[in-house]
C-alpha cells in the first residue's frame, strides 16, 4: 500500500535535486502580472505569464489596464504601469532600472483655451438677435417650428 507514495516521494526528491543543480535561465522573472502583458521573443511578441523567466534584453510591454513587476534575481524590482515598456537590463543600480520603464502612448500637448471661444462663435448666431421682442419671439417660434420636435 505504501509503495506508490514512497516512489513518488523519491521521484520528487530526485527532481528537486536535479532542478536545484540546474542554473535558472534568465536574470529576472515576471510577477504580479495583471491584465495583458507581452514579452519579446525570437519571433516577436507573446504573452507574458506570472513567473516567466526573462533574459537580459527581453522587452516587457504592458497594455491598457495592465501592470507587471520585473523581479531581478538580485532582489531589484521594476514595476511597469499600463502602456509602458521596459527592456530587461543588467549592470545598473536598482534605482536606475526602476526609472527605466517608459510610457509608449504619447500625452497630447495642451493648446489654448481661447480657441474654444472662437469655435463656439458659430453657436452664438443660432438665435435671432433681440432687437424687437415681438419680431424676435415670432422668429424664434418660426425657427422652432422648422426644427424636429423630438430628440433622436
Amino acid at each position, binding site marked *: 500500500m505504501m509503495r506508490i507514495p514512497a516512489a513518488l516521494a523519491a521521484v520528487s526528491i530526485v527532481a528537486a535535486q536535479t532542478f536545484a543543480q540546474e542554473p535558472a535561465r534568465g536574470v529576472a522573472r515576471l510577477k504580479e502580472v495583471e491584465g*495583458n502583458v*507581452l514579452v519579446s521573443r*525570437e*519571433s*516577436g*511578441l*507573446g*504573452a507574458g505569464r506570472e513567473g516567466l523567466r526573462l533574459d537580459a534584453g527581453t522587452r516587457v*510591454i504592458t*497594455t*491598457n*489596464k495592465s501592470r507587471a513587476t520585473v523581479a531581478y534575481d538580485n532582489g531589484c524590482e521594476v514595476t511597469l504601469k499600463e*502602456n509602458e515598456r521596459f527592456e530587461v537590463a543588467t549592470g545598473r543600480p536598482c534605482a536606475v532600472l526602476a526609472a527605466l520603464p517608459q510610457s*509608449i*502612448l*504619447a*500625452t*497630447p*500637448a*495642451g*493648446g*489654448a*483655451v*481661447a*480657441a*474654444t*471661444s472662437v*469655435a*463656439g*462663435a*458659430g*453657436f*452664438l448666431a*443660432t*438665435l435671432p*438677435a*433681440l*432687437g*424687437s*421682442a*415681438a419680431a*424676435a*419671439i*415670432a422668429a*424664434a*417660434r418660426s*425657427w*422652432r417650428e422648422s*426644427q*424636429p*420636435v423630438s*430628440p*433622436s
Partner: protein
Amino acid sequence: MASAWSWRLTFAIAALAILWRVIHVNAVLYEDSGRPRLALPSAPGIGAAPADLDLLRSVLRDNPAQVDALLLIARDAQRRGANEEAASVLAAAYRIAPIDREVLEASSAFFLAQARVDEAMVALASLVEHYPATRERAFPVIAEMLASGAGSSAMRSIVERNPGWAGEFLLATCRRGVDPALLVPLLMHRVSLGSAEPAESGCLIERMRNAGRWEEAYQVWLNTLPRERLDDVGFVFNGGFEFAASGVGFDWIPARQPERDVGHSVEWARTTGGAGKRSLRVSYNGKRQVGSPIAQYLALAPGRYELAGLGRSDAMRVGRGVHWTIRCVNEGVPGAVAAASERFTGSSEWRPFSIALEVDPACRGQILQLEAVGADESAAYVTGTAWFDDISLRRMP
C-alpha cells in the same frame, strides 16, 4: 355645521383653482407637441429695448416655462455684459427644458464665450446626444476643447459614460486630422467596454503610422486585440492564416476592390500540405495587376531578421510570377524594396522559402506584401493560383 360647509367651499374653490391651472397649462400654455406655447403680442410699435424686455417679462409671467423668452432675456443680458444674470437665466431655462435644442445651443455658446468649458461641454454633450443633426457642427468644437485641454474633467466623465455618439465623434475627429493621441483614451475605454468599431482604431492607427509614430500605433493596435490573440502576436501577425483578417492595424490587409478591377482575389482556404487548417489562397485572373492582393504593416526594430514561410504555385503560366517583398514606409508611402522572396511561378508543391532582411534605424515601419514581379517597372499580368502558409519572422543574432 357652518364650519363643515365652509370647509367644503374652501375645498371646492381649491379644486377648481387646481383644475383651472391644469387646463391652462395643458390647453393654453403648451402646444400638443409639449412645447411651450408662445404668446404672440400683436400690438404695433413694440421695438424699444425696455419695452421689449417688459413684454418678455409679461410673457414669462403668463407662462414661466416660456424658454424662448428666457433665452432672449439671457442673450440681452449677455450683450449688456451682465454675464452672471445671463448665466442664471440660462440655468433657469435649462432647468425647465434640459433637452431643448435651443436651450442647449444657447448654453453651449454662452459658456464657450465665457471660457466656462466644463459647463459648455456638458451642454454640448447633451446637444449632440439628443440632436444628431448638430454633430457636424458640434464635434469640431468638442474636439477643440479636447485639444486645448480645457473641459478635461467634463471630457473624462463623457469618456467614462461612453455615450452613443462617442464612436461617431472619434471617427469624425480622427478624420479631421486632430492629434490621434487625444482620442486614444476614448478609444481605449471603448475597447475595454467592447463597443469600439474597427474603423475607429483603424483610423487612429493609420494616422499614427502616417505620422511616423509606429510604436504608438503598434501599442494602440495591441490594445485592440482580444486576450487570446495576444498569446502569439509575433513579428508577423496571424502568419498561419488560421484567423480571418481584420484589415486593421498590423493585421493582414486583403485587397478590398473587386477582382475584375485589380486582377486578383484573396481567400483563407482549407488545404492540405500547408501548416494548420487554413492557408492563404490568391487567385489571379490573367488581367493587369493593380495593387497588392495582401499586405501587412510591420513595426520591426532595427536589426537582422529572417522571414520564412511555405508557398505553392498552381498553373501560374502568364507573367513573371509573384513574390513577397518588404519595403520601408515613410509618411504612409512604401519605398523601394528592402528585401524580396524567390518568385512563385508555374506549378509546384508546397516548399519553404525565406528572406534575409536588415532593418535600418531610419526604417521605423515596414510593409510586407505580395506583389506581381516587375509590377514596379511595367504592367504585370498573372494567371493561376498561389498558396502561402506559416509565414513568420525571426530576429537573427
